[in-house]
């Protein structure tokens, strides 16, 4: 249990460290719209987000996790409890408008691609300036939204890497949010090890493949 607490402490410290220059206390690191955040009107939400049902209707929008499911977790956290929600861990739930349609641009922020250590999802110090640069860009272009793509090297199994890639993308998303970008402008996706940037079976290739890549989305019809 102590070990678990230590892990979370480190994770929290990492998030704090990312908010460069931020002197706010820990409880203020998540100035985040809640589960029911509004759809960003400047973008088009992909219809039908959610869980398909057996019939022709599909649930739309985001369903918050029902409170009270499950029991005590090993670290004492109770899912759905008021005092310790996932937000306390730096996690930011997706809003309804998180999936955006529009013109995609994977080039503009290519130089800001964030690289990760083997089997890790924490953003290393060398990569923080890139996140700050992307945050600045988004603030200067309020009409655009962002997809963060998480990727992994080949040294993990398929579904393990798909989850790890998503965790990496979410870490980048959290860092951007902590720098003042609205959570409903950033969505994530994970390609696991399906789309390596470099073909190769050594650290030179692997280090280029463990990454969070940025895809800008402009509203449909806009060429900005």
């Amino acid at each position, binding site marked *: 249990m102590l070990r678990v607490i230590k892990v979370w402490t480190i994770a929290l410290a990492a998030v704090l460290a990312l908010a460069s220059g931020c002197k706010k206390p820990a409880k203020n690191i998540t100035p985040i719209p809640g589960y029911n955040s509004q759809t960003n009107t400047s973008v088009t939400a992909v219809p039908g987000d959610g869980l398909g049902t057996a019939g022709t209707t599909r649930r739309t929008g985001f369903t918050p996790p029902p409170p009270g499911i499950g029991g005590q977790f090993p670290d004492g956290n109770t899912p759905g409890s008021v005092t310790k929600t*996932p937000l306390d861990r730096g996690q930011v739930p997706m809003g309804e408008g998180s999936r955006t349609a529009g013109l995609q641009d994977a080039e503009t922020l290519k130089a800001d691609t964030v690289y990760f250590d083997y089997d890790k999802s924490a953003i290393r110090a060398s990569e923080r300036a890139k996140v700050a640069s992307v945050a600045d860009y988004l603030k200067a272009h309020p009409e655009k939204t962002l997809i963060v793509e998480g990727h992994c090297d080949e*040294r993990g*199994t398929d579904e393990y890497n798909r989850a790890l890639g*998503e*965790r990496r993308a979410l870490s980048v998303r959290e860092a951007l949010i902590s720098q003042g970008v609205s959570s409903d402008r950033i969505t994530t996706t994970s390609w696991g090890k399906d789309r390596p940037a470099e073909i190769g079976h050594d650290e030179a290739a692997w280090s280029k493949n463990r990454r969070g890549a940025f895809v800008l989305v402009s509203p449909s019809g806009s060429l900005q």
Partner: protein
Amino acid sequence: MTRSFTEIRKRFLSGLALAALAFSLPLMGQEGQGDVTVTKGVARLIPIALSGFTGETQEVLQFDLYVAGFSLVSPGQGEWDLVSQAGGELEAVLNNVTAKTEAFHRSYPGGSVRSRAHTLADEVVEAVTGRKGIAKYKIAFKLDLGRSSEVAVCDYDGGGMVQLTHDGNTVAAPNWGAGRRSLFYTSYKSGYPDIYSHDLGSGARQPFANFPGLNTSASVSPDGSKVAMILSKSGSPDLWVANADGSGLRQLTTTREDESSPCWSPDGSTICFASRESGIPLLYTIPASGGSMRRLSTGGVGNVSEPDWSPDGKLIAFTHMKKGDNFEICVMPASGGNVDVLAAGEDASWAPNSRTLIFVRKDHYVPHLSLLDVPTKRVKDVVRMTGNCSQPSWSR
């Protein structure tokens, strides 16, 4: 006749105890802890002779019996003789050489040559071992064609491959619904990873989960009533479960780190999955109705993923991700503990007999499907297909 896996394991238990003790000493979960060398005994092969079979029938029988733990010997040299009877259709006599008795004399009209030979092989396996055969079951897998990957289905030996999707994007993690009538899988058709359910009878499919973020690793409960999956809409890749009609979605884990690859206990009460909650990937279980995550000991083997629970409930197969591009298929009791390292490879899926695994092997980085008879540790590649094959799921 043949010793069961359990009996074999009992026989080697005394030797194993010391090895297991020594093995459990290294610190749990360290990366790159090197080769895992604990192995158990290997089951005895059953000698059988085939007489008079030719062509495709002979090939199929040899393949099926090899995978089922038989050794092929000359007539009269084995404990069993399988003799072809002259005639237009497949007809065979199985003799018990040791007991000097005829086990059966049957004919197999109708169907393709391969199908008839598979049926005969299954009946030989059942007559000799008492176990149901597996030669008539299907495999769903990810077929990587280079520019895209698609979901495909084939016979368990790699024959009769049919490409199921034509999405032109990326797919992942096919998993059979109950009764082999449907498949759940991940497709990036929308540009994002969504889970689809695909009715194999009508060909109709629909999105099952397409929330913002990641939707993947669908795993259908043994009775077909529920689907476990990994969703990240909470802000982290967590384990969720819903009814198979899409209703009743519930979040089961709330860790900050990612969960992956859920699978079900045969009674549907428990879900086993991998989590990086501790910082490195380890196996956990959780009640399917909600509750506490519980660490499942993998006997000192860290960095593990892709668990699969045997249909008889006794074993869990998983992948040990060694440092470097280097994976091992491991099997242990479902309660955790003594790990048996079986073969180099990844992503194993149990056959309905709880004895055979299908998994992914790599030749010069090219992944293909291979079968593993767990008690004898024999490995046999399935028919090679055009394209890379991975993420196999055995129909049950």
